[in-house]
Protein backbone atom coordinates (compact mmCIF):
# COMPACT_ATOMS: atom_id res chain seq x y z
CA UNK A 1 0.00 0.00 0.00
CA UNK A 2 1.14 3.47 -0.80
CA UNK A 3 1.36 5.90 2.03
CA UNK A 4 0.31 9.32 0.80
CA UNK A 5 2.05 11.22 3.56
CA UNK A 6 5.38 9.66 2.69
CA UNK A 7 5.24 10.86 -0.91
CA UNK A 8 7.28 13.68 -2.28
CA UNK A 9 5.15 16.70 -3.22
CA UNK A 10 5.76 16.02 -6.89
CA UNK A 11 4.76 12.39 -6.54
CA UNK A 12 1.63 13.43 -4.71
CA UNK A 13 0.88 15.97 -7.44
CA UNK A 14 1.43 13.25 -10.05
CA UNK A 15 -0.95 10.86 -8.28
CA UNK A 16 -3.64 13.52 -8.06
CA UNK A 17 -3.00 14.39 -11.69
CA UNK A 18 -3.55 10.75 -12.68
CA UNK A 19 -6.92 10.76 -11.01
CA UNK A 20 -7.86 14.15 -12.45
CA UNK A 21 -6.82 13.03 -15.94
CA UNK A 22 -9.05 9.96 -15.77
CA UNK A 23 -12.06 12.09 -14.84
CA UNK A 24 -11.30 14.95 -17.21
CA UNK A 25 -10.58 12.63 -20.14
CA UNK A 26 -13.94 10.93 -19.65
CA UNK A 27 -15.63 14.32 -19.52
CA UNK A 28 -13.77 15.68 -22.55
CA UNK A 29 -14.49 12.53 -24.60
CA UNK A 30 -18.14 13.05 -23.82
CA UNK A 31 -17.93 16.72 -24.82
CA UNK A 32 -16.00 15.78 -27.96
CA UNK A 33 -18.74 13.36 -28.89
CA UNK A 34 -21.26 16.13 -28.20
CA UNK A 35 -19.46 18.42 -30.61
CA UNK A 36 -19.10 15.72 -33.26
CA UNK A 37 -22.77 14.72 -33.11
CA UNK A 38 -23.97 18.27 -32.38
CA UNK A 39 -26.09 16.87 -29.58
CA UNK A 40 -25.98 17.93 -25.92
CA UNK A 41 -26.43 14.30 -24.94
CA UNK A 42 -24.97 12.01 -27.63
CA UNK A 43 -25.47 8.80 -25.64
CA UNK A 44 -28.68 8.12 -23.75
CA UNK A 45 -30.00 5.26 -21.69
CA UNK A 46 -33.52 3.99 -22.32
CA UNK A 47 -35.57 4.57 -19.19
CA UNK A 48 -38.99 3.19 -20.12
CA UNK A 49 -40.47 0.28 -21.99
CA UNK A 50 -42.48 2.40 -24.41
CA UNK A 51 -40.33 1.35 -27.37
CA UNK A 52 -40.41 -2.38 -26.67
CA UNK A 53 -39.43 -4.70 -28.14
CA UNK A 54 -36.94 -2.51 -30.06
CA UNK A 55 -35.44 -0.93 -26.94
CA UNK A 56 -35.62 -2.12 -23.36
CA UNK A 57 -34.88 -0.32 -20.15
CA UNK A 58 -31.12 0.01 -19.74
CA UNK A 59 -30.22 -0.15 -23.43
CA UNK A 60 -27.68 2.35 -24.66
CA UNK A 61 -28.51 4.55 -27.66
CA UNK A 62 -26.14 6.65 -29.76
CA UNK A 63 -27.60 9.83 -31.19
CA UNK A 64 -26.82 11.96 -34.21
CA UNK A 65 -28.07 15.49 -34.48
CA UNK A 66 -26.53 16.78 -37.72
CA UNK A 67 -28.65 16.94 -40.85
CA UNK A 68 -31.94 17.84 -39.27
CA UNK A 69 -34.18 16.61 -42.10
CA UNK A 70 -35.68 13.91 -39.94
CA UNK A 71 -37.82 11.40 -41.83
CA UNK A 72 -40.84 9.43 -40.73
CA UNK A 73 -39.74 6.09 -39.26
CA UNK A 74 -36.65 7.48 -37.52
CA UNK A 75 -36.40 7.23 -33.77
CA UNK A 76 -35.75 10.54 -32.04
CA UNK A 77 -34.97 11.60 -28.49
CA UNK A 78 -36.75 14.73 -27.36
CA UNK A 79 -37.25 16.73 -24.20
CA UNK A 80 -40.75 17.79 -23.27
CA UNK A 81 -40.76 21.56 -22.79
CA UNK A 82 -40.60 22.48 -19.14
CA UNK A 83 -39.56 18.97 -18.14
CA UNK A 84 -36.11 17.55 -18.30
CA UNK A 85 -36.98 13.98 -19.15
CA UNK A 86 -35.63 12.71 -22.44
CA UNK A 87 -38.08 10.50 -24.31
CA UNK A 88 -37.16 8.06 -27.09
CA UNK A 89 -40.00 7.60 -29.60
CA UNK A 90 -40.53 7.00 -33.29
CA UNK A 91 -41.54 9.74 -35.74
CA UNK A 92 -44.92 8.88 -37.28
CA UNK A 93 -45.74 12.15 -39.01
CA UNK A 94 -43.83 15.13 -40.31
CA UNK A 95 -44.75 18.40 -41.97
CA UNK A 96 -43.34 21.88 -42.38
CA UNK A 97 -39.63 22.23 -42.88
CA UNK A 98 -37.99 24.08 -45.74
CA UNK A 99 -37.74 27.68 -44.61
CA UNK A 100 -39.97 27.16 -41.58
CA UNK A 101 -39.48 24.79 -38.67
CA UNK A 102 -39.90 21.08 -39.25
CA UNK A 103 -42.72 19.63 -37.12
CA UNK A 104 -42.83 16.04 -35.94
CA UNK A 105 -45.36 13.79 -34.26
CA UNK A 106 -43.96 10.84 -32.35
CA UNK A 107 -45.29 7.59 -30.93
CA UNK A 108 -43.81 4.83 -28.85
CA UNK A 109 -43.78 1.43 -30.55
CA UNK A 110 -45.42 0.00 -27.44
CA UNK A 111 -48.02 2.78 -27.05
CA UNK A 112 -51.35 2.53 -28.83
CA UNK A 113 -51.71 6.33 -28.90
CA UNK A 114 -49.36 8.95 -30.27
CA UNK A 115 -47.55 11.38 -28.01
CA UNK A 116 -49.89 14.39 -28.34
CA UNK A 117 -50.89 14.05 -24.71
CA UNK A 118 -47.30 13.72 -23.62
CA UNK A 119 -46.24 17.06 -25.03
CA UNK A 120 -46.45 20.32 -23.12
CA UNK A 121 -49.83 21.94 -22.76
CA UNK A 122 -50.97 23.52 -26.01
CA UNK A 123 -48.25 21.76 -27.99
CA UNK A 124 -49.37 19.12 -30.44
CA UNK A 125 -46.15 18.70 -32.42
CA UNK A 126 -42.44 18.72 -31.75
CA UNK A 127 -40.21 21.37 -33.21
CA UNK A 128 -37.30 19.44 -34.71
CA UNK A 129 -34.70 22.05 -33.91
CA UNK A 130 -35.86 23.10 -30.46
CA UNK A 131 -37.21 19.95 -28.88
CA UNK A 132 -35.24 17.08 -30.40
CA UNK A 133 -31.73 16.34 -29.14
CA UNK A 134 -30.89 13.67 -31.68
CA UNK A 135 -31.90 10.76 -33.85
CA UNK A 136 -30.95 7.21 -32.82
CA UNK A 137 -28.24 5.68 -35.03
CA UNK A 138 -26.59 3.06 -32.82
CA UNK A 139 -27.60 0.55 -30.21
CA UNK A 140 -25.88 -1.47 -27.49
CA UNK A 141 -28.16 -3.55 -25.31
CA UNK A 142 -28.19 -3.57 -21.53
CA UNK A 143 -24.90 -1.82 -20.65
CA UNK A 144 -26.70 1.37 -19.67
CA UNK A 145 -28.40 -0.45 -16.85
CA UNK A 146 -25.56 0.63 -14.57
CA UNK A 147 -26.75 4.23 -14.76
CA UNK A 148 -30.31 3.22 -13.92
CA UNK A 149 -28.96 1.47 -10.84
CA UNK A 150 -26.87 4.54 -10.02
CA UNK A 151 -29.83 6.88 -10.23
CA UNK A 152 -32.05 4.54 -8.24
CA UNK A 153 -29.44 3.92 -5.56
CA UNK A 154 -27.50 7.19 -5.21
CA UNK A 155 -25.11 5.78 -2.59
CA UNK A 156 -23.69 3.55 -5.34
CA UNK A 157 -22.34 6.70 -6.98
CA UNK A 158 -20.31 7.56 -3.91
CA UNK A 159 -19.03 4.01 -3.64
CA UNK A 160 -18.04 3.91 -7.30
CA UNK A 161 -16.33 7.28 -7.27
CA UNK A 162 -14.48 6.28 -4.11
CA UNK A 163 -13.36 2.98 -5.59
CA UNK A 164 -12.24 4.71 -8.75
CA UNK A 165 -10.24 7.25 -6.80
CA UNK A 166 -8.73 4.56 -4.63
CA UNK A 167 -7.55 2.41 -7.51
CA UNK A 168 -6.07 5.36 -9.35
CA UNK A 169 -4.27 6.64 -6.27
CA UNK A 170 -3.07 3.18 -5.28
CA UNK A 171 -1.92 2.27 -8.71
CA UNK A 172 1.06 3.94 -10.30
CA UNK A 173 1.76 4.50 -14.01
Amino acid at each position, binding site marked *: MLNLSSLQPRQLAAQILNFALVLSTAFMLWKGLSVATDSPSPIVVVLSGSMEPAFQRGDLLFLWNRGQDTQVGEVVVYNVRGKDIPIVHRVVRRFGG*GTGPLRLLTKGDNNAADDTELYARGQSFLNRQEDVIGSVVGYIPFVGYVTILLSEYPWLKTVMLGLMGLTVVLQRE
Partner: protein
Amino acid sequence: MHSTLVRAQTAFGFFTTVAFCVAALIALSGFVSPQTPSADIKLRNVQVVRGRPNYYSTKKEEYAHIKFDLDTDLSTLFTWNTKQVFLYITATYPSLKPSEPPSSAIIWDAILASPSAPWHQNQYEAPGTPDTRKSDPEAQKAIAAPGILHLQNQRPKYQITDYTGKVANRSDVVLELGWNVQPWVGALTWRGWSDWGVWKGLKGGRTERFGFPGVKERVKVQKEDLGTAKGGEGNRGKPA
Protein backbone atom coordinates in the same frame (compact mmCIF):
# COMPACT_ATOMS: atom_id res chain seq x y z
CA MET B 1 -5.75 -7.52 -0.96
CA HIS B 2 -4.17 -4.91 -3.19
CA SER B 3 -3.04 -7.55 -5.59
CA THR B 4 -6.47 -9.24 -5.63
CA LEU B 5 -7.98 -5.90 -6.61
CA VAL B 6 -5.44 -5.48 -9.37
CA ARG B 7 -6.10 -8.97 -10.65
CA ALA B 8 -9.87 -8.46 -10.62
CA GLN B 9 -9.39 -5.20 -12.45
CA THR B 10 -7.19 -6.82 -15.08
CA ALA B 11 -9.63 -9.68 -15.59
CA PHE B 12 -12.57 -7.31 -15.89
CA GLY B 13 -10.66 -5.06 -18.26
CA PHE B 14 -9.80 -8.01 -20.46
CA PHE B 15 -13.39 -9.24 -20.44
CA THR B 16 -14.62 -5.78 -21.45
CA THR B 17 -12.12 -5.54 -24.30
CA VAL B 18 -13.03 -8.97 -25.66
CA ALA B 19 -16.77 -8.27 -25.36
CA PHE B 20 -16.34 -4.95 -27.12
CA CYS B 21 -14.35 -6.46 -29.98
CA VAL B 22 -16.81 -9.31 -30.48
CA ALA B 23 -19.71 -6.84 -30.47
CA ALA B 24 -17.93 -4.62 -32.99
CA LEU B 25 -17.31 -7.57 -35.31
CA ILE B 26 -20.95 -8.65 -35.07
CA ALA B 27 -22.11 -5.10 -35.71
CA LEU B 28 -19.91 -4.80 -38.81
CA SER B 29 -20.84 -8.23 -40.18
CA GLY B 30 -24.25 -6.92 -41.29
CA PHE B 31 -22.65 -4.60 -43.83
CA VAL B 32 -21.09 -7.44 -45.84
CA SER B 33 -24.28 -9.51 -45.98
CA PRO B 34 -26.08 -8.74 -49.28
CA GLN B 35 -29.60 -7.33 -49.21
CA THR B 36 -32.05 -7.61 -52.10
CA PRO B 37 -35.38 -6.34 -50.79
CA SER B 38 -38.36 -6.10 -53.07
CA ALA B 39 -41.97 -5.11 -52.51
CA ASP B 40 -45.14 -4.37 -54.34
CA ILE B 41 -47.68 -1.98 -52.89
CA LYS B 42 -51.07 -1.07 -54.42
CA LEU B 43 -53.73 1.37 -53.35
CA ARG B 44 -57.00 -0.43 -52.78
CA ASN B 45 -59.36 2.22 -51.53
CA VAL B 46 -59.24 5.69 -49.97
CA GLN B 47 -61.97 7.59 -48.19
CA VAL B 48 -62.00 10.91 -46.36
CA VAL B 49 -64.33 11.45 -43.44
CA ARG B 50 -64.79 14.09 -40.76
CA GLY B 51 -63.99 13.21 -37.18
CA ARG B 52 -62.44 14.28 -33.90
CA PRO B 53 -58.92 13.51 -32.72
CA ASN B 54 -60.34 11.93 -29.55
CA TYR B 55 -63.76 11.51 -28.07
CA TYR B 56 -63.62 14.52 -25.73
CA SER B 57 -62.24 16.91 -28.34
CA THR B 58 -64.52 19.44 -30.01
CA LYS B 59 -62.17 19.96 -32.92
CA LYS B 60 -63.40 18.54 -36.24
CA GLU B 61 -60.78 17.30 -38.64
CA GLU B 62 -60.70 15.41 -41.91
CA TYR B 63 -59.23 11.94 -41.86
CA ALA B 64 -58.02 9.86 -44.76
CA HIS B 65 -58.62 6.14 -44.48
CA ILE B 66 -56.42 4.19 -46.89
CA LYS B 67 -56.61 0.49 -47.73
CA PHE B 68 -53.86 -1.24 -49.63
CA ASP B 69 -52.38 -4.49 -50.92
CA LEU B 70 -48.85 -5.35 -49.93
CA ASP B 71 -46.45 -8.07 -51.07
CA THR B 72 -42.91 -8.05 -49.75
CA ASP B 73 -39.80 -10.14 -49.80
CA LEU B 74 -37.56 -8.68 -47.14
CA SER B 75 -36.01 -11.97 -46.08
CA THR B 76 -32.47 -10.72 -46.81
CA LEU B 77 -32.88 -8.06 -44.11
CA PHE B 78 -32.83 -10.78 -41.50
CA THR B 79 -29.23 -11.62 -40.64
CA TRP B 80 -27.93 -13.12 -37.42
CA ASN B 81 -27.63 -9.58 -36.02
CA THR B 82 -31.22 -8.60 -36.83
CA LYS B 83 -33.49 -8.31 -33.81
CA GLN B 84 -36.51 -7.01 -35.64
CA VAL B 85 -37.61 -5.03 -38.66
CA PHE B 86 -40.02 -2.18 -38.03
CA LEU B 87 -42.00 -2.08 -41.26
CA TYR B 88 -44.19 0.89 -42.12
CA ILE B 89 -46.13 2.46 -44.93
CA THR B 90 -46.14 6.21 -45.27
CA ALA B 91 -48.51 8.42 -47.19
CA THR B 92 -46.60 11.38 -48.60
CA TYR B 93 -48.39 14.38 -50.06
CA PRO B 94 -47.30 17.89 -51.08
CA SER B 95 -47.61 20.66 -48.57
CA LEU B 96 -50.02 23.52 -49.21
CA LYS B 97 -47.14 25.98 -48.98
CA PRO B 98 -44.83 25.71 -51.99
CA SER B 99 -41.77 26.48 -49.84
CA GLU B 100 -42.25 23.41 -47.69
CA PRO B 101 -41.19 19.86 -48.54
CA PRO B 102 -43.92 17.21 -48.73
CA SER B 103 -45.57 16.05 -45.53
CA SER B 104 -45.78 12.40 -44.64
CA ALA B 105 -47.47 10.17 -42.11
CA ILE B 106 -47.43 6.49 -41.22
CA ILE B 107 -50.69 4.74 -42.04
CA TRP B 108 -49.68 1.21 -41.09
CA ASP B 109 -46.79 -0.46 -39.33
CA ALA B 110 -45.72 -3.92 -38.21
CA ILE B 111 -42.89 -5.27 -36.12
CA LEU B 112 -41.42 -8.24 -37.95
CA ALA B 113 -39.57 -10.30 -35.39
CA SER B 114 -36.40 -12.14 -36.23
CA PRO B 115 -36.47 -15.89 -35.56
CA SER B 116 -33.88 -15.27 -32.84
CA ALA B 117 -36.03 -12.72 -30.97
CA PRO B 118 -38.10 -13.84 -27.99
CA TRP B 119 -41.87 -13.57 -28.30
CA HIS B 120 -43.37 -10.15 -27.65
CA GLN B 121 -46.97 -9.04 -27.88
CA ASN B 122 -46.11 -6.22 -30.27
CA GLN B 123 -44.67 -8.51 -32.89
CA TYR B 124 -46.70 -8.76 -36.03
CA GLU B 125 -48.48 -11.92 -36.96
CA ALA B 126 -49.54 -11.97 -40.57
CA PRO B 127 -53.09 -13.11 -41.20
CA GLY B 128 -53.27 -16.85 -41.56
CA THR B 129 -50.02 -17.41 -39.68
CA PRO B 130 -50.36 -20.82 -38.12
CA ASP B 131 -49.97 -21.18 -34.41
CA THR B 132 -46.24 -21.22 -33.95
CA ARG B 133 -46.44 -23.13 -30.70
CA LYS B 134 -47.56 -26.24 -32.53
CA SER B 135 -44.91 -28.10 -34.42
CA ASP B 136 -46.51 -27.25 -37.72
CA PRO B 137 -44.07 -27.51 -40.68
CA GLU B 138 -45.75 -24.47 -42.28
CA ALA B 139 -45.16 -22.51 -39.10
CA GLN B 140 -41.55 -23.57 -39.02
CA LYS B 141 -41.21 -22.34 -42.59
CA ALA B 142 -42.78 -19.00 -41.71
CA ILE B 143 -40.28 -18.56 -38.90
CA ALA B 144 -37.38 -19.58 -41.10
CA ALA B 145 -38.28 -17.02 -43.77
CA PRO B 146 -39.42 -13.85 -42.07
CA GLY B 147 -40.11 -10.72 -44.09
CA ILE B 148 -42.38 -12.34 -46.65
CA LEU B 149 -45.85 -10.79 -46.53
CA HIS B 150 -48.92 -11.07 -48.73
CA LEU B 151 -51.63 -8.71 -47.52
CA GLN B 152 -54.89 -8.21 -49.40
CA ASN B 153 -57.14 -5.19 -48.89
CA GLN B 154 -55.31 -4.40 -45.65
CA ARG B 155 -56.90 -1.84 -43.34
CA PRO B 156 -54.70 0.98 -42.10
CA LYS B 157 -53.61 1.13 -38.48
CA TYR B 158 -53.89 4.90 -38.41
CA GLN B 159 -56.26 7.33 -40.08
CA ILE B 160 -54.22 10.34 -41.00
CA THR B 161 -54.88 14.03 -41.09
CA ASP B 162 -52.90 17.15 -41.89
CA TYR B 163 -52.00 19.83 -39.35
CA THR B 164 -54.45 22.12 -41.14
CA GLY B 165 -57.15 19.59 -40.43
CA LYS B 166 -57.91 19.36 -44.16
CA VAL B 167 -56.93 16.42 -46.34
CA ALA B 168 -59.85 16.15 -48.76
CA ASN B 169 -59.15 16.64 -52.45
CA ARG B 170 -55.37 16.59 -52.10
CA SER B 171 -53.52 15.31 -55.13
CA ASP B 172 -50.18 13.60 -55.76
CA VAL B 173 -50.34 11.31 -52.76
CA VAL B 174 -47.88 8.38 -52.77
CA LEU B 175 -47.74 5.34 -50.52
CA GLU B 176 -44.22 4.17 -49.77
CA LEU B 177 -42.87 1.20 -47.93
CA GLY B 178 -40.20 1.89 -45.35
CA TRP B 179 -38.43 -0.04 -42.64
CA ASN B 180 -36.01 0.29 -39.80
CA VAL B 181 -33.75 -2.69 -39.15
CA GLN B 182 -33.08 -2.96 -35.43
CA PRO B 183 -29.90 -4.95 -34.71
CA TRP B 184 -28.96 -6.90 -31.60
CA VAL B 185 -25.98 -4.59 -31.39
CA GLY B 186 -24.71 -1.88 -33.72
CA ALA B 187 -26.11 0.62 -36.17
CA LEU B 188 -29.79 1.02 -36.96
CA THR B 189 -30.48 1.13 -40.69
CA TRP B 190 -33.40 2.32 -42.79
CA ARG B 191 -34.90 1.59 -46.18
CA GLY B 192 -32.82 2.92 -49.06
CA TRP B 193 -33.91 3.47 -52.65
CA SER B 194 -30.44 3.24 -54.14
CA ASP B 195 -27.69 0.62 -53.91
CA TRP B 196 -25.15 0.90 -51.12
CA GLY B 197 -22.27 -1.56 -51.21
CA VAL B 198 -23.72 -5.07 -51.29
CA TRP B 199 -27.10 -3.70 -50.26
CA LYS B 200 -29.49 -3.25 -53.17
CA GLY B 201 -32.05 -0.46 -53.00
CA LEU B 202 -35.69 -1.37 -52.55
CA LYS B 203 -37.29 -2.62 -55.78
CA GLY B 204 -40.87 -1.47 -56.08
CA GLY B 205 -42.46 -0.50 -52.80
CA ARG B 206 -44.10 2.67 -54.08
CA THR B 207 -47.59 3.30 -55.48
CA GLU B 208 -48.65 5.44 -58.40
CA ARG B 209 -49.69 8.97 -57.50
CA PHE B 210 -53.30 9.25 -56.48
CA GLY B 211 -55.64 11.83 -55.01
CA PHE B 212 -57.72 11.98 -51.85
CA PRO B 213 -61.44 12.24 -52.63
CA GLY B 214 -63.83 14.76 -51.15
CA VAL B 215 -65.34 14.33 -47.69
CA LYS B 216 -67.94 11.60 -47.40
CA GLU B 217 -70.75 12.04 -44.99
CA ARG B 218 -70.43 9.63 -42.10
CA VAL B 219 -73.98 8.34 -42.57
CA LYS B 220 -73.23 7.26 -46.09
CA VAL B 221 -70.18 5.25 -45.12
CA GLN B 222 -70.49 1.79 -43.76
CA LYS B 223 -68.95 1.83 -40.30
CA GLU B 224 -67.30 -1.45 -41.06
CA ASP B 225 -65.41 0.22 -43.91
CA LEU B 226 -63.60 2.66 -41.64
CA GLY B 227 -62.26 0.17 -39.12
CA THR B 228 -58.55 0.23 -38.44
CA ALA B 229 -56.25 -2.65 -37.75
CA LYS B 230 -55.16 -2.91 -34.15
CA GLY B 231 -51.54 -3.41 -33.20
CA GLY B 232 -50.31 -5.40 -30.26
CA GLU B 233 -49.16 -2.33 -28.28
CA GLY B 234 -49.20 -3.15 -24.61
CA ASN B 235 -49.72 0.39 -23.40
CA ARG B 236 -53.29 1.34 -24.25
CA GLY B 237 -53.81 4.20 -21.81
CA LYS B 238 -51.96 7.46 -21.79
CA PRO B 239 -48.60 7.24 -23.51
CA ALA B 240 -45.69 6.83 -21.17
